[in-house]
């Protein structure tokens, strides 16, 4: 805080207070390297600043326009920028203001036409007209299933009930997905405005935002936003002087992945165990506290004000025949530019990974991309030219999901990845229904033994049979989607399973039980470096003579390969 004051004072001293606009950002991303300052439009990131640094920083950076190289975040830290300048293939709708406006200041949002859509809706349109606009835009649920938003609103509106609720699903639990967090922390008012419009359309008086407790900053930002909206009369009694009243509350989760499922989410808001229940009745008919409830994802709501302001035709122009608009994705894994992107539907996976994402790290080859979170699927290189929309991804054996995208290079073992996802699902299964609770456990056991080199003949067939049963018989989306990582890797990478089971080999050289290390006598110069670093002393050999690894003692830690300067250690 002292730094902020000092920065202001120094800018003033140099007559720059009109030139430089200071935004007090809650967090830039590298909390362990704070205090930090981001300078735009240059996009320079200063870290580890102290009070004494400020005068020189102002002199050099702002007055003379010369960046102080040694205080900038190291090149490695560049990667932390979650949201870069958009590449030509990107279109920012939901993320248009993220990182540009102060999320804790409602005035900033209003200056970007914020709450104008709400004013228009309340004064010019009937609820049915609002639903019709959303219908013409073709907006579909961004939580993953892609259900028509207008239809959901219409069903909730038509359901009989004196009290109705709108709920925002901000329980973004998919590993590798942080699009919603970014929207909540970057432009919370867009979500609020979308929810208020939805409430008007369906006739609700009360709303809840269910946010996972792993996102403390999002929760804090939302609460600030709600209070500011209340103080301006945008929430509460008689909004904009009309007869429409609506208020909002944030409810936080407590760490349960399954609460992203809508019926489990409802149970959790009611203060119960977050276990799903069979549908129908759908929440639109019988939801929170037994009342008709409209549940949409963060991104769905955030799209609504833009659709109202710019018209449904503008929105429907983007995307494919059945999937309209844009979608945010979180790129993670072995791709050069990890972080958030927003692209129109219909873009190909190749464009996302290679044009927007910059290709594969370390110039390795692309192997697979996992879309749709843990219940999604892994798609191989042959699917790269697939246009991304709800239907196409499902046809290819994956799902849209909420928008996590984990890119994997050639050094990834697909059986290991399937095992990894199954471990997650098995752990997060709530335990209510047997196919999911027991079935995922059995699948994990089989996958683990395959990775440990103990795979048996018939294991693949057993996995397939279990997948089919779990998919058919589970209660909720988590169970029904649980076998997906296995089914999709079996479909596209069956040969890897076969190599593990029948040839006792891991083609990607990942599964430890199936690899061994050897020293190439042609390349070894006898420097003894590997022998000195081996934690179990399994490497023997004299100075300047070829060394040998004893495979019976070797624990396959790979340290010898890492330290060797002559690339003499081979993995077989």
């Amino acid at each position, binding site marked *: 805080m002292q730094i902020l004051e000092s920065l202001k004072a120094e800018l003033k001293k140099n007559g720059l207070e009109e030139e430089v606009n200071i935004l007090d950002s809650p967090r830039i991303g590298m909390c362990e390297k704070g205090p930090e300052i981001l300078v735009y439009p240059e996009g320079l990131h200063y870290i580890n600043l102290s009070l004494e640094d400020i005068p020189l920083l102002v002199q050099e950076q702002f007055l003379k326009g010369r960046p102080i190289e040694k205080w900038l975040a190291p090149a490695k830290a560049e990667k932390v920028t979650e949201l870069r300048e958009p590449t030509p293939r990107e279109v920012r709708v939901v993320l248009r203001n993220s990182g540009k406006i102060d999320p804790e200041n409602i005035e900033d949002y209003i200056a970007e036409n914020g709450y104008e859509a709400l004013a228009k809706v309340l004064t010019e349109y009937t609820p049915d007209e609002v639903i019709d606009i959303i219908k013409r835009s073709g907006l579909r649920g961004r939580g993953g299933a892609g259900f028509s938003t207008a239809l959901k609103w219409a069903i909730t509106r038509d359901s009989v009930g004196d009290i109705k609720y709108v709920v925002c699903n901000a329980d973004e639990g998919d590993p590798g997905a942080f699009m919603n967090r970014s929207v909540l922390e970057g432009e919370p008012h867009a979500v609020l405005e979308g929810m208020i419009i939805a409430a008007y359309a369906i006739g609700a008086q009360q709303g809840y935002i269910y946010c996972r407790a792993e996102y403390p900053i999002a929760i804090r930002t939302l609460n600030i936003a709600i209070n500011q909206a209340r103080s301006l009369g945008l929430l509460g009694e008689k909004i904009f002087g009309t007869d429409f009243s609506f208020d909002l509350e944030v409810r936080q989760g407590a760490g*349960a992945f399954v609460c992203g499922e809508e019926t489990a989410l409802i149970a959790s808001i009611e203060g119960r165990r977050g276990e799903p229940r069979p549908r129908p009745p759908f929440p639109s008919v019988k939801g929170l506290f037994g009342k008709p409830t409209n549940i949409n994802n963060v991104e769905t709501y955030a799209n609504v004000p833009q659709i109202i302001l710019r018209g449904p035709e503008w929105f429907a122009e983007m995307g494919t025949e059945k999937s309209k608009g844009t979608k945010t994705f979180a790129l993670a894994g072995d791709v050069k530019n990890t972080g958030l992107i927003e692209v129109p539907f219909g873009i190909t996976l190749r464009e996302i990974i290679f044009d927007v994402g910059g290709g594969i790290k370390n110039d390795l080859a692309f192997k697979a991309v996992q879309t749709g979170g843990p219940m999604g699927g892994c798609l191989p290189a042959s699917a790269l030219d697939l246009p991304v929309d709800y239907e196409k991804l499902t046809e290819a054996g994956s799902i849209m999901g909420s928008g996590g995208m984990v890119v994997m290079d050639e050094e990834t073992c697909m059986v290991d990845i399937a095992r990894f996802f199954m471990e997650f699902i098995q752990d997060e299964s709530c335990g209510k229904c047997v196919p999911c609770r027991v079935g995922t456990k059995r699948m994990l056991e089989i996958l683990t033994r395959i990775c440990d080199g103990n795979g048996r003949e018939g294991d693949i067939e057993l996995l397939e049979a279990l997948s089919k049963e779990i998919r058919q018989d589970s209660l909720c989306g988590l169970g029904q989607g649980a076998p997906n990582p296995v089914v999709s890797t079996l479909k596209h990478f069956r040969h890897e399973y076969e190599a593990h089971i029948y040839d006792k080999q891991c083609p990607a050289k990942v599964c430890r039980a199936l690899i061994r290390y050897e020293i190439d006598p042609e390349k070894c110069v006898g420097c003894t470096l590997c022998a000195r670093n081996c934690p179990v002393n399994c490497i023997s050999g004299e100075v300047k003579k070829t060394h040998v690894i004893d495979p019976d003692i070797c624990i396959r830690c790979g340290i010898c390969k890492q330290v060797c300067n002559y690339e003499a250690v081979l993995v077989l």
Partner: protein
Amino acid sequence: MNIQKTNGRGVIEIVDLVVDEFHAKKEELIPMLMKINQTIGYIPNEAFDRLSTRIRVPKSQIYSVATFYHMISTKPVGRHVIKFCESAPCHVAGGYEVWKTVLKELGIQPGDTSEDGKWTLMTTSCLGVCAVGPVMMIDDDIYGNLTPDQVPGILGKYE
């Protein structure tokens, strides 16, 4: 129990304060449990009893809710809690090597608390900062872009 955080107040007193804050509403059970968990570090047995009396919900039901959610603990925790992200993006980014180093440095298994009461090690679901994986969280601090050799230095910063 962490005396500093509780200001020397007893469990009953803490539960009462929390229940009053949430107007003893049954549907606020999860926020109440989270708040008690934050203050004391876990939910002791006597807190279950008091909560049950105050909000008129059977203890069995409160216990079933508390044990359902990962972030609510029914066992005492150490002075510092490490939450290590075990999600795919961190795994793909080299998380396993870092994880092994953490296990080696602390000498405890996930879910356990060290004998001196300093560390509790947990795994966590995705923290949503995947762009800087592998990631771990110690108390309220997030550490990203981790490599195995950084681990001893980071752990050494905590008393």
